[in-house]
């Protein structure tokens, strides 16, 4: 047992830290802290820089352009990115469909889709959930019917994150209507510019447009865009869900969040003292830090197991549950710390130059919308109730 990083790991840490400091776009600094809604180009700017360096896809095998990092190095990388508060790399291509394509795809599919996924020239979205298929994902109804060398796809997807920017989507569709639940599903890559696709925004509680409904009406999809065998798409889906969960603990980002609360609490005043001197508030931060520490060392144990060749198992559900609970508590504390100034709603009236009467400190502006928004984390990616079911069944055998 040894908690120290090796000298090589420490050298790596210094190297990536220096790279971020030198190359991260200045105009994107602090956008995370302020909880700004980011546009397509904001996401892509950092993606492209990392793609050029070969670091955009830490977990990919080297033969597909991955940097060949160990899981410890990947951990250090994500930690450094969080410390620098970089714009996150969108997971849909890099963490989700990319690994599905290099694991299950044909040589032609790999050649066609992997390079532009790396460079950011394909923006992916995920067509999984449907109005009637949320936690019960296998209940999906979107149909694909074979017509020569095409499928004709009809149905509706929902909660499709960032579909408004997407070039391509990866969709779960039902190809055998008579098969039961998980059987009869196929995994299709669909060009979002295909005729018959309509993307409609869903506005969420904080006023954001992150998610969408995607309607598919007689969309023609070449059979060559199916990944893996017909009716065996659930294999890809399960593989992808496991990848989606790894990294979902968000430890490094949460550490940054805790630091941010401390800094707000040092600035906010209460009875002429900084809020951080308040024994109630201080204790809540301390409890949060301790919970985060417990999560961090649980994640490190998982990581060590992974390094030893044991893939992430159903234990990763623990990381999802605890990780999202901590993310949510961070937003609760930030809102509490903001006091009265958690109340103003800024969307649409943040005009420049109106400094005569500032509406509270900048750090307060997005605390409430962020609190509302982050409620999603215990719902998406398999709700926390589903994650507990997974632990109950797969880990405890109940």
């Amino acid at each position, binding site marked *: 047992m040894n908690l120290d990083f090796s000298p090589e790991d420490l050298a790596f840490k210094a190297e990536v830290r220096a790279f971020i400091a030198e190359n991260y776009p200045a105009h994107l600094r602090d956008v995370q802290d302020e909880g700004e809604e980011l546009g397509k180009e904001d996401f892509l700017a950092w993606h492209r820089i990392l793609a050029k360096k070969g670091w955009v896809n830490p977990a990919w095998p080297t033969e597909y352009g991955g940097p060949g990092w160990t899981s410890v190095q990947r951990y250090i990388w994500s930690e450094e990115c969080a410390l620098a508060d970089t714009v996150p790399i969108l997971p849909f291509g890099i963490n989700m469909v990319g690994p599905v394509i290099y694991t299950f795809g044909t040589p032609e599919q790999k050649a066609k889709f992997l390079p532009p996924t790396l460079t950011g020239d394909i923006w992916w979205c995920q067509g999984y959930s449907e109005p009637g298929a949320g936690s019960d994902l296998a209940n999906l109804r979107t149909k694909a019917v074979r017509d020569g060398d095409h499928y004709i796809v009809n149905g509706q997807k*929902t909660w499709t994150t960032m579909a408004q920017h997407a070039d391509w989507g990866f969709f779960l569709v039902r190809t055998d209507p008579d098969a039961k639940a998980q059987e009869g599903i196929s995994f299709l890559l669909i060009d979002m510019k295909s005729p018959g696709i309509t993307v409609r925004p869903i*506005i969420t*509680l904080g006023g954001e447009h992150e*998610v969408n409904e995607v309607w598919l009406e007689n969309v023609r999809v070449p059979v060559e865009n199916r990944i893996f065998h017909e009716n065996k798409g659930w294999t890809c889906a399960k593989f992808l869900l496991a990848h989606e969960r790894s990294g979902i603990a968000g430890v490094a980002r949460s550490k940054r969040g805790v630091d941010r609360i401390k800094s707000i609490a040092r600035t906010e005043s209460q009875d002429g003292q900084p809020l951080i001197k308040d024994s109630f508030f201080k204790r809540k931060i301390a409890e949060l830090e301790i919970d985060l520490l417990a999560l961090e060392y649980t994640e490190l144990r998982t990581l060590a197991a992974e390094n030893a060749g044991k893939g992430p198992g159903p234990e990763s559900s623990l990381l999802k549950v605890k990780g999202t609970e901590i993310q949510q508590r961070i937003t609760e504390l930030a809102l509490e710390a903001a006091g009265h100034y958690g109340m*103003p*709603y800024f969307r649409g009236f943040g005009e420049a130059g109106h400094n*005569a*009467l500032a509406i509270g400190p900048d750090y307060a502006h997005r605390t409430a919308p962020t609190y*509302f928004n982050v*409620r999603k984390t215990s719902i998406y990616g398999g709700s926390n109730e589903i994650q507990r079911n997974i632990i109950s069944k797969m880990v405890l055998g109940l």
Partner: protein
Amino acid sequence: MDFNFTDEQNMLRDTVAKFVQQQYDFDTRRAIVKSEAGWRPDYWKVMAEELGILGAPFSEDQGGLGGGPVDNMIVMEEFGKGLVIEPYLGTVVIGGGFLKHGGGAQAGDLIASIIGGEATFAFAYAEPQGRYNLADLTTTATKDGAGYSINGRKAVVVGAPWASHLIVTTRTAGGQRDRAGVTVFVVPADAAGITRRDYPTVDGLRASEIQFDNVKVGADAVIGTVDQGLDLVELVTDEAIAALCAEAVGAMRKIHETTIDYARQRKQFGVPISSFQVLQHRMVDMFMNVEQSVSMTYMATLKLDESNVERTKAVSAAKVQIGKACRFVGQAAIQIHGGMGMTDELAVGHYFKRATMIEGLFGSVDHHLRRYETFSLGDAA
């Protein structure tokens, strides 16, 4: 011991409930939130003239219906069920409360115009540095001839864009956080020297940052006693908190009801999600939170006229319960609604947003726990 309402109070509840059901559905409210004005002055007229509820807590001598805090509680609970935006809390409970308890030269006329629907009030008490400490005041009022001149800055004044009058807490003597030296004024919202910056709030209301630059008021603008206003501010704020608790109860009842309905309808794995025990227990916990909040709201409302110590303990205890319940009930509702709970389309999210703001209004759970501790366990007990 009697938790029953009088016939008049039941009638008041029916009147308000009917108005909310018939004229304040979710789409109507959304339209109001999005409108330029942000409220419905015509509805305010309806409340004054047709429903006659703006006089509910005033004595018959004052032209009111002869009710009190329980009547405010009833109105606020029903308003909470419809997320009513119009400023009953700011005007009737707070503005009316100051005028009732503090008196002053203008009190009679102003109460009459509250009841008649002509005057609306906003409570300018919070300051950027003050957090929830009502005595932490840098806004000053200094003697100026026969009257006063007010200077300073007020933060997040809810309802100010709609108000004809502001209740302003100021420091007339003493240090920044001293109990002594606080004076309350009623100021016309359009008085010379007032600058406002208006904005929407996350829960669909409107509020303002307000700057006072040499705002001149007469001696008749004082409410209560010069330099001794803090007791009055605390009393009226406690009444406002009790009314806010009632609003929260109305909102939480609705959240709970909506969640049960949704869970019964929503099917996953071939069955309604209401059949899952983990969600059943969550909804039971919501129920218990709501019921305990109802109890605490009654208790606090009935203790508003007791001694300062008893009143403070009761109100802070209620606000702690309601603050915790708002968070639990709201979060559970969103979780059980799943993705749908996250959307702007469904009413439940809007109730959650209001409930979340109520958590912090007039003091967070921590603030009121501390206040309760001081009065129950500290030197004051």
